[in-house]
């Protein structure tokens, strides 16, 4: 225990704003953030005015100065924003928050992230920006850069589909694995009253018959579009002992970007990757565990084939046996050997850039999940497969310290 400094920190509060289909939140973004923060503080039994640190990721985000003013924080001592794109930074924001506590920079750090879509906006959709009369130009080699947009590589789904086609055609992973991952999330959502897809189960037939987005992605391989915010409160493990909830400890956390992983036109060696190949062994070493010790897995689903890549990189399957390991029966909390995305995840609970995966991990270790896995003591949560920079964390109960 003393060899792993991260275990000196615990997650003591989790909360959300409520989730709404895209563009339908009655609250503006800032109120969603405040509601999530209040809910997480209430859960922990901490006065929101005790927050002295804020951590987030994937800017632009709600300005911590604005939050500090609104809550009348006596002194904001720490505020950080992690660099990863999309949901790649969720776990890294938790790592940053924990680091701040360990270093004595702050005592009560909230990690918070919201998603609020403009009415009518869609992910991957260009509004009037292109083709709206004036000539638009692009340069550089990033997302929608000069190497991509002029060739119709515009949306996240298109941009991140090339490597998924290599997973199918080159690595030989059967599409049945994608269907199983997607249906497991929808199955879990039927037990989760907060889930947006509660009441809307997904059959194998409906998955198969859904429309293509960008091959190999079908509609149900893609994350939801919605509004909502999620927050978590981190404190020292000492402080956590005296709070309302069972402390959930960080056993490992980190972020990663592999060699040239954001170079133009996809010029990095291992394109068929969820981008966890360097990080996974490091996290297991830090936690002193292996994949066989993980009770529940929460893997960020921007696009389902990326989940398969992440599971392979974290040692839960190989590309050769993915078809046998990744079956619906094996992925559900009710008797599966590899319970995956037990809240419904980004596909069926809500897409809050991966925050939902961490807080569902917390619920599993507390024993309060709506799809509870018996004796769950160790949970892996990953953030952002397929993005150039990703992060992940391993949560544990006090029993495994």
């Amino acid at each position: 225990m003393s060899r792993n400094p991260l275990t000196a920190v615990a997650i003591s509060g989790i909360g959300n704003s409520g989730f709404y289909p895209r563009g339908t939140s009655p609250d503006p973004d800032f109120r969603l953030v405040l509601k999530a923060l209040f809910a997480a503080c209430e859960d922990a039994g901490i006065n929101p005015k005790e927050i002295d640190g804020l951590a987030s990721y994937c800017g632009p985000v709600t300005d911590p100065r604005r939050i500090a003013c609104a809550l009348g924080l006596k002194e904001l001592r720490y505020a950080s924003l992690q660099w990863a794109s999309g949901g790649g930074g969720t776990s890294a924001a938790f790592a940053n928050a924990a680091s701040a506590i360990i270093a004595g920079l702050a005592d009560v750090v909230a990690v918070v992230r919201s998603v609020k879509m403009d009415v009518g906006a869609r992910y991957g959709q260009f509004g009037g920006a292109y083709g709206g009369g004036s000539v638009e130009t692009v340069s550089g080699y990033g997302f929608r850069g000069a190497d991509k947009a002029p060739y119709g590589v515009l949306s996240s789904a298109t941009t991140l589909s090339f490597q998924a086609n290599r997973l199918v055609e080159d690595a030989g992973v059967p599409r049945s694995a994608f269907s199983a991952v997607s249906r497991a999330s929808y199955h879990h959502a039927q037990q989760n009253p907060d889930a947006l897809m509660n009441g809307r189960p997904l059959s194998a037939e409906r998955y198969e018959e859904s429309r293509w987005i960008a091959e190999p992605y079908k509609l149900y391989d893609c994350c939801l579009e919605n509004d909502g915010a999620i927050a978590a409160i981190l404190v020292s493990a000492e402080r956590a002992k005296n709070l309302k909830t069972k402390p959930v400890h960080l056993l490992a956390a980190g972020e990663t970007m592999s060699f040239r992983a954001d170079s133009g036109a996809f010029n990095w060696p291992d394109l068929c990757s969820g981008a966890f190949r360097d990080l996974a062994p490091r996290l297991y070493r830090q936690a002193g565990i292996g994949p066989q010790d993980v009770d529940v897995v929460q893997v960020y689903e921007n696009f389902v084939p990326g989940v398969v890549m992440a599971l392979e990189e974290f040692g839960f399957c190989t590309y050769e046996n993915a078809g046998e390991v990744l079956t619906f029966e094996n992925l559900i909390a009710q008797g599966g050997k590899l319970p995956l995305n037990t809240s419904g995840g980004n596909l069926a609970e809500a897409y809050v850039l991966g925050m939902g995966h961490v807080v569902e991990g917390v619920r599993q270790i507390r024993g309060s999940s709506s799809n509870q896995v018996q004796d769950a003591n160790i949970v892996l949560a990953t953030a952002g497969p397929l993005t150039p920079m990703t992060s992940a964390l391993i949560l544990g109960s006090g029993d495994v310290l």
Partner: protein
Amino acid sequence: MTTSETYLPDVLPVPLPMDDGMDKPHWDGLNAEKLIVQRCGHCHTWIWGPEHVCYNCLAWDPDWVETEPKGRIYAWTRVHTPGMDALKPVTPYICVIVELPQAGNIRLIGNLLGPGTQDVKIGEEVVGQFEHHSKGGYDYTLLQWRKA
């Protein structure tokens, strides 16, 4: 597939060199129907996307060299939901990542010319075709690919 002279209709953004001009030789080369990419003059590493220093040996200002526009398909996607209403009439369309064995296996993105419904496979050999555009006072050229 598209019936216009270009593979995709002329509704997409115009590619320009970066503000600092670093990659201008590449775009000028395409206009002259030449594929110009980076290769380090010191350690001879082929480099793409372009960089101010060689990522391998960190020497400044890699050389700009011409290479043949031919290669093989490294990865592909068939786009059905493009994220832009004006592209809907031409779906599905195919985007490919082409690797160039004669240039250190660097990769470029383009479209695969021909029907959007055609079969496409990793490893298929393709040759480049320069596709000239003129729009809003800009003349630019895309490098497209067709099966060899």
